[in-house]
């Protein structure tokens, strides 16, 4: 479904992504792991068009999407959440998700119809799915950290994506919240037939959840395979798992 070939990008002299390769099949859950600064977020930013690659190709559903702007890529069915909190803090929770739903239905430019009567059921459905319906009239910026992270995922779902990219969806969460959130993500992925690409620090969660794992280091793909294959790989054991 998504194929990334020899992707490269650098900031000044620093090669953040230096020949990343990745193939994601439809319906699979793929995790990207690697130490801090390995280029995971940069890779995601390249895929979603927030950065333009210097070399390499990104193919989505057989179509070359390399270098397209983010709003075009989004419309092709790739949605994402961000590592740092990325919501619309002054809007209500409902509006946060509705903006995405409106955009998905190409209604963003409609001028003379009150938004509060539009696509309400769809929006509420998503909120219910992630368990935020009860807080839908709160100002997003006043939610707890954990709820804001979930709201991020809800916003991404508003685009009815086929392909969802989650950049550390549980950053800053407690262990319990992390487990609950990842269970939610897994459930959503299964229910809606999403293809999921995510990165996550908690190795146990990654190995229990992912169908395939890609290991990055210094911008390069070290290995990409099933959890078992990755576990067997010596290089990974040395470099990443500290021989444990």
């Amino acid at each position, binding site marked *: 479904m998504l194929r990334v070939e020899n992707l490269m990008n650098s900031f000044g002299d620093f090669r953040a992504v230096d020949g990343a390769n990745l193939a994601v099949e439809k319906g699979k859950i793929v995790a990207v792991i690697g130490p801090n600064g390995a280029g995971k977020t940069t890779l995601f930013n390249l895929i*979603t068009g927030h950065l333009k690659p210097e070399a390499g190709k990104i193919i989505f559903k057989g179509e070359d999407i390399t270098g397209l*702007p983010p709003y075009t890529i989004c419309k092709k069915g790739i949605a994402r959440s961000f590592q740092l909190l990325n919501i619309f803090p002054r*809007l209500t929770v409902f*509006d946060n998700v509705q903006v*995405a739903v409106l955009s998905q239905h190409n209604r963003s*430019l409609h*001028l*003379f119809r*009150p*938004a509060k009567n539009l696509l309400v059921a769809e929006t509420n459905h998503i909120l219910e799915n992630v368990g935020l319906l009860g807080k839908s009239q709160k100002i997003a910026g006043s939610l707890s950290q954990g709820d804001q992270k979930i709201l991020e995922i809800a916003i991404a779902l508003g685009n009815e994506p086929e392909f969802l990219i989650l950049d550390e969806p549980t950053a800053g969460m407690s262990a319990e919240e992390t487990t609950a959130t990842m269970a939610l993500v897994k459930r959503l992925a299964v229910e809606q037939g999403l293809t999921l690409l995510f990165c996550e620090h908690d190795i146990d969660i990654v190995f229990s959840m992912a169908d395939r794992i890609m290991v990055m280091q210094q911008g390069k793909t070290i290995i990409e395979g099933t959890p078992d294959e990755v576990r067997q790989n010596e290089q990974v054991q040395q470099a990443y798992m500290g021989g444990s």
Partner: protein
Amino acid sequence: MFKGMIHKGALSALAGLLAVMLILPCLIPRFYVYLIASILVMALLAMSLNLVVGFGGLFQFHHGVFYGVGAYAVALLITKTGLPQWICFVLAPFAAALAGLIIGLICIRLRQLYFAMIQISLGSLLWALAFRWYDFTGGDDGIHGIPMPDILSGIHNSYYFILTVFTLSIIGLFFILSSPFGITLQAARDNAQRCEAIGVFVRRHQLFAIVIASFFAGVAGVLFVVLEGSVFPDLLFWVLSLEILIMCLLGGWFTFAGPIIGAALMLSLRSFIGMQTEYWTLILGIILALLIFFLPQGVWGYILEKVKSRKEAVVEREA
């Protein structure tokens, strides 16, 4: 924040306010009628600015230009073309919107201060043109004695005309802000990067906002000509643009009605303090400095905050 405003109590309060506005001219001296009419004009201008600054998060620092373009367009159309005045009234806001489109297209490539600076330079070019092109714009004298339709003669008639257009424009702005377009604009203000990631072409969206705001600024420009019967280059000068920014600040950035309150406060203060002293700008400067330090959310924003926290306290007590 304005969704809550439409419930029945607020609606009847607004209807009552409108009724008061309608009978007011019969009760008060002509000077006050004139003052209220000029407040309405300024309030519309400030609200159109707040659409892009408060709700759009853009550094629209030279919004006065579109007001000036609207005013000059109607003045020039009436005095040079001989078209019926009513047609000129309708055309002028579109001229302002066109100016908004052109200036917006150049500015929107850039962000924040760069956006502001380029807008100020383009606006200053228009100001310099109006200031110097004596044959066409009347230069620094401006154009005076612009003929108005008979039905608008006299302060009372123009007051009712201005009130009508103002009310319609406010309703229009209200609908725009609560439309999908308006909500998406606010989302782009809060977080442009995220907004692009959910499939919104943010710059095009913001450009539309500039064009719409310019249109309403142009409407305000037309109303100014209706009220004063003249235009002059100061309408395009950057000082006016900063003054309407102050009105938005005074009333409250993120509130719908804030700019109206700001314009009302500022113009009333100006006419009453201006009568007492020639140092009005000194006082305005001090008021502005005090606002920045002690009431950055604006008068109306402060009131809304208080009301809201009281409501929440009541809810908590009941719970």
